[in-house]
């Protein structure tokens, strides 16, 4: 996925870009509205993350122009303002969602995901491994002409494995990606979700293998 981040704080922008990069997304950074317009004119983005208070203007004006130009790229507003009345104006102006700073990255990711799902399309995001097809938009796993629905965490877990088959993921790494940092979870919570996934993969060409003392990996059944 390719995102555009419009944010004037260089440190925050760098951290957000880095954090998205960890999940395999490419993020372009615009420091102001002029930059943002230039980026939007030349590149097709899947999603725009927009700050409101910018040195060269109000992000809401950009949003209004963006919608007037019939540009359909979804916009999530990053706002430091928390008054509900502000939120209502934002949604009226055509923002798809908003996140109040400071944001929980897991929540931001979830909101991006929800907005992209609502947007529909993007069938090229389907992943296939050993005859099993993962459709992240529909949250389904299809093998042998039977589809199974995935709950949110199952989907995120299976996405991690499908994006890098055969790579070993440690429990710690998986926990970081599955749970919000503000949640208290024990390590065997991962075992629960891996167990569920194994059930859903039963009878297909793929399975999740335990690599003793290292973690898990996705492999084709022999």
């Amino acid at each position, binding site marked *: 996925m390719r995102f555009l981040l419009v944010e004037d*704080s260089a*440190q*925050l922008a760098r*951290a*957000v870009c*880095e*954090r998205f990069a*960890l999940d395999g997304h490419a993020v372009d950074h615009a420091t102001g509205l002029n930059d943002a317009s230039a980026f939007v004119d030349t590149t097709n983005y899947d999603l725009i993350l927009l700050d409101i*208070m910018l040195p060269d203007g109000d992000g809401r004006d950009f949003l209004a122009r963006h919608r007037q130009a019939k540009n359909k790229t979804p916009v999530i507003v*990053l706002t*430091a*303002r*928390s*008054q*509900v*009345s502000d939120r*209502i104006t934002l949604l009226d102006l055509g923002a798809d*969602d908003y996140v*109040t*700073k*400071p*944001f*929980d*990255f*897991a*929540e931001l990711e*979830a*909101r991006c*995901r*929800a907005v992209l799902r609502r947007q529909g399309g993007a069938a090229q995001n389907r992943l296939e491994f050993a005859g099993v097809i993962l459709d992240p938009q529909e949250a389904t796993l299809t093998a042998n002409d039977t589809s199974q629905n995935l*709950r*949110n*965490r199952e989907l995120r877990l299976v996405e991690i494995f499908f994006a890098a088959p055969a790579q070993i993921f440690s429990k*710690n*790494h998986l926990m*970081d990606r599955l749970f*919000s*940092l*503000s*949640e*208290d979870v024990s390590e065997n*919570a991962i075992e629960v979700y891996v167990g569920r996934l194994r059930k859903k993969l039963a009878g297909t060409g793929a399975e999740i293998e335990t690599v003793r003392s290292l973690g898990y990996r996705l492999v084709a059944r022999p």
Partner: protein
Amino acid sequence: MTSLLPKGSMQRRLVIQLSLIALLLSLVLFVIVRGVAERAAADTQDNILAASATSIADALFAEGGQVRLELPYSALSMLGTISEDRVFYRVLVDGETLTGYDDLVAKAALGVPKQPEFSTFEYRGEQVRAVVVTRLVSSQSHQALVRIVVAQTRLGLVQISSRITLLAVAIGIAFFFVATGLSLWAAHSALAPLNRVAGAVTRRGPSDLRAVQTQAPAELVPLITALNSLIERLKSSLTRSEDFIVEAAHRVRTPLATVRTQAEVIHRGLEKSKNKTALREMIRAIDESSRSAGQLLDHAMVNFRADQFQTEAIDLRKLMAETVERLSPTAELKDISIITQDQGGDFDFDGDPILLQNALRNILDNAIKYSPADSNITVTLARDAHNHILSFADQGRGFAGANLSDHLQRFKRGTNVNDIVGSGLGLTIVDEVARAHGGLVEITNHTDPKGGGACVSFYLPLV
């Protein structure tokens, strides 16, 4: 608000001053009326006395060198027409009494004055008014100087005078009362514009910060101008503090967001679980402070809006659906399903949509926060005879503590939630929003075979 203790009353002062003036005028009126009337009465007596004396003088004639008089009785009877007063007379010819009372002596000038001379003196124990008319009567030998003195007691005049005094007093009192009544009316109508301005300011709603535009007399214009400039300053100070809150939020939240995101990135790269735990605690502290800041701002906003309460027509069903949609990504993160149960009917309500949305979001946000993963939150739209009831039941740990309603108090949190970030303001905000709409919040622990938990019900009165 402290009430002002009034120092004196303009209306009372005005009435007292006008009444004193009326009293003074009444006294002057009394004195003038009595003076004029008594003068008129006295003049009447004098005129009759003069006429009487003159008619006696006209009856004088000379006969055989002697001055003779045939007293015309009409001369004395005309004096009886005005009162029952006694009448005395004396006619002197060259100092000798011709007829009448010998001891009746009245002051008279020497010679022959053209005009009758009047005087007042005591005679036989009574006040009398006397007139002297002097004539020269010619006989063959010489001219005789004849003085006619006619006197009358003043009892009738005193009677008339006391009647006049009574009348003057009556006129004075009547004038005083009429003038005082008029001054009351004048004071009231002079102060009426002041009351009108006060009424115009009192009647306006608490959020009405427009300038006062009431029609007012010139004297009140400085007061209204001062009031308007105060309103203007208040308005700009309110705007400034709102701007300040927004600006402050931006200044605080952006660096917090940077720290939090960087901490997350570092957390991902760390291997040692001890370091990971420390960083996690740091992130929680950031969450806690940002959440508290957010809730404090929300709380201030709720108080602000509840103070200047303004309503519009709202569909609670739609509001609920929006709230659920807004929070579903957060719920999905924990595989929590939000199930909506709708008992049908209309859910139209007059309220402040921003306040209500804030309240519903707070309740649902709480429910998600305290729900375990893979659980359900049931949202119910129902109504009883008097209320719309919006309830949120989760399968979490429920409310702990002896008195559940304590949770609605500011900064009071349950005894079983130390491991979860919270400000203790969420339910306080919800409670304040409910009160502002004439409703209430009920918090209970429900027992459901599939798993009990907390249930928050938001009651709003039917329109």
